[in-house]
């Protein structure tokens, strides 16, 4: 194995060894959302004409799980090994910043996608989703996971303490995911909030992903692809630069 492959393997093994917490728990949370929101709002919210609310909710919850877990993996791994001091074992090696990037993004994508798949499989019990354009589902799942995994690297490098990490997650990642149309269609919002939602890159990830299921979405999937792809390239450039210069990890 080359350096990045071993780091990738180690990072996958790290979350898999505690999969009850890193995979099982988020799947359960998403299913609880589905049961509670689905039950309460089933007769009150109408999104697209022909789609019932629970079916509408499933892709949103799957994507939310993918995004939050991809972020949690790289960010918590980095901040934990920084605080524990065990990051030194990687810092002493000849691995390049690209190797670090590939390994952390790759392993975090795996965790996000495994959790997303788990949520999807469990929700099959409650709803039979359509699969109108499966390729879009795959494209947005991969791209969304990659974007949040990369953001996780930036947050993990930046945070010096666990509470800083929690703040990043609770005040940025969670609100942006919740306000991106997981639980509702943007078209149901007043014009002002519709405009605000269009500034949220998370909206395009979930909207594009949902297009893959229903062949219907608030924005064109191509527009969503362009925005999410551009966001990932920008965030990747920043993450690579931080890793190259050893931001907060090499003094």
């Amino acid at each position, binding site marked *: 194995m080359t350096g990045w492959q071993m780091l990738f393997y180690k990072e996958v093994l790290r979350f898999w060894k505690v999969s009850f917490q890193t995979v099982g728990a988020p799947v359960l949370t998403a299913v609880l959302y589905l049961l509670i929101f689905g039950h309460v709002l089933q007769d009150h919210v109408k999104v697209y004409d022909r789609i019932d609310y629970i079916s509408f909710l499933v892709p949103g919850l799957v994507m939310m799980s993918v995004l939050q877990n991809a972020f949690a993996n790289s960010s918590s791994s980095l901040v934990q090994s920084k605080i524990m001091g065990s990051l030194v*074992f990687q810092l002493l090696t000849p691995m390049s910043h690209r190797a670090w990037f590939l390994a952390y993004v790759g392993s975090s994508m795996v965790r996000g996608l495994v959790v997303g798949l788990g949520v999807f499989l469990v929700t099959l019990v409650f709803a039979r989703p359509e699969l109108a354009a499966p390729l879009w589902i795959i494209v947005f799942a991969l791209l969304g996971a990659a974007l949040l995994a990369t953001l996780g690297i930036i947050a993990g490098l930046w945070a010096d303490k666990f509470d800083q990490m929690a703040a990043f997650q609770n005040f940025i990642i969670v609100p942006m995911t919740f306000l991106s149309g997981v639980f509702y269609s943007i078209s149901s919002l007043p014009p002002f909030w519709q405009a605000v939602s269009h500034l949220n890159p998370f909206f395009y990830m979930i909207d594009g992903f949902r297009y893959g299921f229903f062949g219907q979405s608030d924005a064109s999937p191509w527009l969503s692809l362009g925005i999410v792809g551009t966001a990932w390239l920008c965030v990747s450039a920043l993450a690579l630069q931080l890793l190259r210069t050893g931001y907060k990890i*090499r*003094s």
Partner: protein
Amino acid sequence: MAPWPVAVQGCGRKPTRAEAVKSLSPMPAVSFQSVSKTYSTPRGPFHALSGVSLDIEEGEFFGLLGPNGAGKTTLISILAGLARASSGRVLVQGCDVQADFSQARRKLGVVPQELVFDPFFNVREALRFQSGYFGVKGNDDWIDELLHSLGLADKAQANMRQLSGGMKRRVLVAQALVHKPPIIVLDEPTAGVDVELRQTLWHFIAKLNKQGHTVLLTTHYLEEAEALCGRIAMLKNGRVVALDRTSELLRAASGNVLVFKTDSALPDALAAQARVTGRVVQLAANDAQDIERFLATLREAGVEVQDIEIRRADLEDVFLNVMAAAAAAEETAGASPQPLEHA
């Protein structure tokens, strides 16, 4: 444990003419060239290292000594790529630790000072990961050999959290050697380690050194440095204040030390120059007259003493002399003391 080759290899790029000429003379294993490191702090810049220059030759057992905050760990961190020098450069067998970091790090096996570990994994996994990070494939035989040599064979499947401090220290040594580096760097490896493990560790490292490996050691245990290191550099406030062969440093402090125990207060004349540790008093003496004078002063003052002995000055005495001389030089020369030849 079977030895591994320690041949000097280049940096994978064509040497410049100047480098080619220089390569006719033996290349040092590690070369610190005017290395400075300044940290910005809320109270202004802090100079952790100021123009440190020294070469460590192939196969040497080199000691880096100094009080806390002298810059030893900063210097090792710059060598290992954990920190960047503000100016100057460091070469490992001719490879710049910044420009050729990949090659330089392959040549180094670094045992960090802190007892760090990854709580998710067991000993064997930790060693396999470390091999993989260095791109070493199929390394299980060597890992088994390391586990055996360091007395870790029965702990291979134990989680890192379950190990005692001494065992964790052994794993750190194994992790540093997993890619068979020619140069081994140990940053205070025996801090907080029991006597038995200290002996095991030194036996192991001394054997590696005999096989041709270069060893760079920082330690607070001066008797260890005296016993193991062929050459020693002493740092104080980020500067080299002494650099010589251990035997020369000891010869420079060729005096004796009068050692005794007492429960009484020392007369003022002696208190100023005595080193007191609990009941034990040590007085540096250049000759027999000094010793006679000390004893006479004690007798006149009616101080009751026990267990009198005279021993030769050791590295601890040299160290204290050098530090005191460096402090005096700093006072007289302001912020830029001159390095001392030796004690």
